């Protein structure tokens, strides 16, 4: 036989994520085991609650809907997802076994290639990427359901028996928490509470009212640092020593969210609350179990670090944990928030350590209060893995006489923080946007002046700087400099509305390559030397567009997704366009993150370029759609701000 019989079908399957990762011989094996089936429109292919799927279905043509019967409006079917040509379904149900969680119906006449379950499972064993992919698809489905259903999901979907490996699926709090928390009334003597905890072998006790309403929590650590140090008698009530109010979380929240909450509040226990009643306790150890690594452990390690050197040594494990968490998957918003959370922590710690070092080195404490600003993507909380530094420093106004000395101190300080950040894996900003640059280490008054000047007299260079600086956010601040600065910026903008036109024109600088992908599809076999810059052609236009509108409307948040939501609320963006933009932004971000992770795994330096040929059908389709949406946004900007009037 000179060639495989079903070469084109093989090509088709190869273009379907995640099968693009399979070597040819495995693809041939898969295709040889396949069957072609036809399902007339409205045929129920997999019934929710029925036996799990026997096949993985590849849609050759037509589309299918994934739904949850009885969960929609008026007891109808809730649409969870739609699958079209080049998509698959049934994979989850196959891996999961047990009862099918969702109903799959042919939305239109459907032709599918069916891969028998046994063959699929064999492939999963040799290619973990497959299993991961379908695990993540569960997460997406659940997310879709969770967005619509506030009621008890497990009861509807029969999710109790979730049996996929937990690291793969983004598990939910309900599955990880200790479901029978040890609780006590606020009046219980600490002695009795300690006794209970020891007997039940738990590390925390939840203090609750008789009805179950949580009042506080008392942990092992609290016993050590509060009870032992402060209690006069062990008969004093627990209410005296508990942390209150406790940090709580819903049992339906994802492990991811719990992790964010813990690292954000710096706690190791969350009280799981439903209908205002305690239903469980989630500790950082419960989370460690699913990640293999210990994210919270790392967060704790960052907090405990006593020197810059130690922090630098910790950097590989921080990286590993962040990477691990990113690989677990999640929405773009969560992933970006997570990376930012870790980076913020490192930066905050570095600032504190540097202050100490300066003091011990005889250079003294900071002469006046100051604030450390995160700018650019860090300011927007949109960092992926390692990105260049973008930061600045603002300090209290000082008399003319001492200004040079004060600025000198802060410049020295900033240089050390910047250098520390470099050693922790954040390269210096090539454009010099760093607090160690005298231009970006200024007193409050000077900053006000700088911003006002940029707004009053926009020039190409200041517009570019504005697009970095106007996304500022405080990482560390001893006073409300940044609120005042934001207010001043707003006033300046009121005084010169024309500035927005310039800002908008600047936002139109990067255009999405609309013809790019189409051309690519036609041009088979040519050279594809021209790669696509995901960041500049997809993300930057959205980020820039959202910034202009947010500045016009006086929206304070700097995060692009939050900006888009606020802009929509204020009616400047139509609901559909806003939703499409969020989708486009999230998709490109996820694509970018996955590319970065791939590069990492292969030991390459992550960049923002992607070879369109390496994208599968679905990704190409999504990217094309995303570019169209970006284009729509830019047309809107052109019209609203009349950018063509700028000569």
């Amino acid at each position, binding site marked *: 036989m000179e060639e495989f019989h079903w070469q*084109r079908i093989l090509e088709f399957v190869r273009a379907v994520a995640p099968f693009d990762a399979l070597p040819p011989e495995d693809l041939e094996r898969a295709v040889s085991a396949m*069957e*072609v*089936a*036809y399902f007339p429109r409205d045929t129920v292919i997999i019934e929710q609650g029925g036996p799990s799927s026997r096949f993985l279905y590849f849609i050759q*043509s037509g589309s299918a809907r994934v739904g949850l019967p009885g969960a929609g409006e008026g007891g109808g079917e809730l649409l969870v997802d739609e699958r079209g040509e080049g998509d698959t379904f049934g994979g989850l149900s196959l891996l999961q076994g047990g009862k099918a969680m969702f109903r799959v119906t042919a939305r239109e006449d459907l032709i599918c290639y*069916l891969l028998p379950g046994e063959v699929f499972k064999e492939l999963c064993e040799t290619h973990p990427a497959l299993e991961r992919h379908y695990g993540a698809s569960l997460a997406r489905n659940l997310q879709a359901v969770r967005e619509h259903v506030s009621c008890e999901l497990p009861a509807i979907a029969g999710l109790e028996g979730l049996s996929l490996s937990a690291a793969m699926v983004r598990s939910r709090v309900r599955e990880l928490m200790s479901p029978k928390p040890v609780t006590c009334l606020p009046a219980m003597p600490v002695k009795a509470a300690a006794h209970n905890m020891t007997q039940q072998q738990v590390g925390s006790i939840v203090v609750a009212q008789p009805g179950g309403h949580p009042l506080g929590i008392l942990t092992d650590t609290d016993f050590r640092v509060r009870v032992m140090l402060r209690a006069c008698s062990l008969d004093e009530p627990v209410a005296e020593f508990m942390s209150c109010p406790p940090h709580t979380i819903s049992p339906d929240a994802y492990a991811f969210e719990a992790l964010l909450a813990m690292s954000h509040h710096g706690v190791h226990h969350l009280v799981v609350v439903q209908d205002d009643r305690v239903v469980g306790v989630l500790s950082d150890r419960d989370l460690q179990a699913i990640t293999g690594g210990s994210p919270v452990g790392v967060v704790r390690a960052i907090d405990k670090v006593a020197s810059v050197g130690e922090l630098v040594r910790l950097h590989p494990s921080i990286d590993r944990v962040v990477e691990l968490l990113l690989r677990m998957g999640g929405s773009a918003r969560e992933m970006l928030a997570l990376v930012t959370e870790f980076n913020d922590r490192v930066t905050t710690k570095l600032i504190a350590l540097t202050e100490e070092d300066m003091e011990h080195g005889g250079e003294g404490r900071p002469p006046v209060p100051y604030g450390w600003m995160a700018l650019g993507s860090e300011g927007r909380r949109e960092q992926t893995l390692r990105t260049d530094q973008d930061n600045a420093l603002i300090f209290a106004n000082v008399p003319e006489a001492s200004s040079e000395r004060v600025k000198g101190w802060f410049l020295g300080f900033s240089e050390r923080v910047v250098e520390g950040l470099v050693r922790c894996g954040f390269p210096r900003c090539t454009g010099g946007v760093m607090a160690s640059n005298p231009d970006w280490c200024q007193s409050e008054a000077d900053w006000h002046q700088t911003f006002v000047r940029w707004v009053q007299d926009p020039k190409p260079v200041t517009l570019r700087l504005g697009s970095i600086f106007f996304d500022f956010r405080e990482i560390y601040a001893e006073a409300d400099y940044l609120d005042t600065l934001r207010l001043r910026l707003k006033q300046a903008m009121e005084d010169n509305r024309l500035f927005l036109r310039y800002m908008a024109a600047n936002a139109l600088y990067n255009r999405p390559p609309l013809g790019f992908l189409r051309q690519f599809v036609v041009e088979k076999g040519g050279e594809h030397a021209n790669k696509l810059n995901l960041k500049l052609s997809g993300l930057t236009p959205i980020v820039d567009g959202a910034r202009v509108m947010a500045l016009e409307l006086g929206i304070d948040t700097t995060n692009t997704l939050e900006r888009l939501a606020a802009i929509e609320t204020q009616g400047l963006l139509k609901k559909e366009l806003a939703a499409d933009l969020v989708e486009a932004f999230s998709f490109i971000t996820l694509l970018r993150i996955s590319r970065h992770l791939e590069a990492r795994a292969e030991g390459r330096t992550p960049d923002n370029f992607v070879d369109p040929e390496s994208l599968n059908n679905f990704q190409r389709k999504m990217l094309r759609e995303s570019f169209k949406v970006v284009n729509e946004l830019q047309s809107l900007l052109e019209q609203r701000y009349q950018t063509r009037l700028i000569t």
Partner: protein
Amino acid sequence: MSLVKAKLANLLLRRRLKRRDLNPHALANLEALEGLDPATPINECRFVVLDTETTGMDPEQDRVVSVGAVRLVQGRVRLGEAFSELVNPGRDIPAVAVKVHGITPDKIASARHGAQVFEEFLGFLGRDILVAHYAKFDLHFINRVMRGRYGFPLQNLVLDTVLMCQAVVLASDPYGISRHQKACRLEALAQRFGIAAPERHTALGDALITAMIFQRMLARLEAVGGARLKDLMRVAQLK
């Protein structure tokens, strides 16, 4: 011909051939109708969908250059059970035909001759029901070899997707405008059903398309209550 008649003819044939020394393939083919029951649900039937490429359209002069077939069981086409062979026609291939199927003389120079390939196909076919588009044409070539080698024609039940399409698809055409030869062509039917060709236009690729069209028509037939083999035979059996 009803299944009863076919079985009767088959029985007579077997009587007649009793004393002859037959090759195993021929013997097996004599049993092709066994187990077939008009009341069998279509979903439980096994089909082999066949397509051939030839040197031309003249059944007397022309010869087969390529055979492709896929098996369809429980309404699904099994890609892993496919038959695809080039055949040396033992004569030249007219340029016109090369244009149609792209099989050039040098490609089939090393191919086996019709009789060998045919015997192998007979093994692949087994007792399954044979389905083809313009089945008469394909059957003609098969039977020429069958008669030449074994002295009797193919015993399997044969269905024609063109007949079936005239009964199942075109009958529902409200104005009868499409009741035209062209509407029965493979490409026209594929287009009608919105089936994108999964493979190239080889014998095997066309066999797959035929199978997918057959699949569609089976669904239509079942939708109007024709769920048994006898219903299928009524609309598709080669007369």
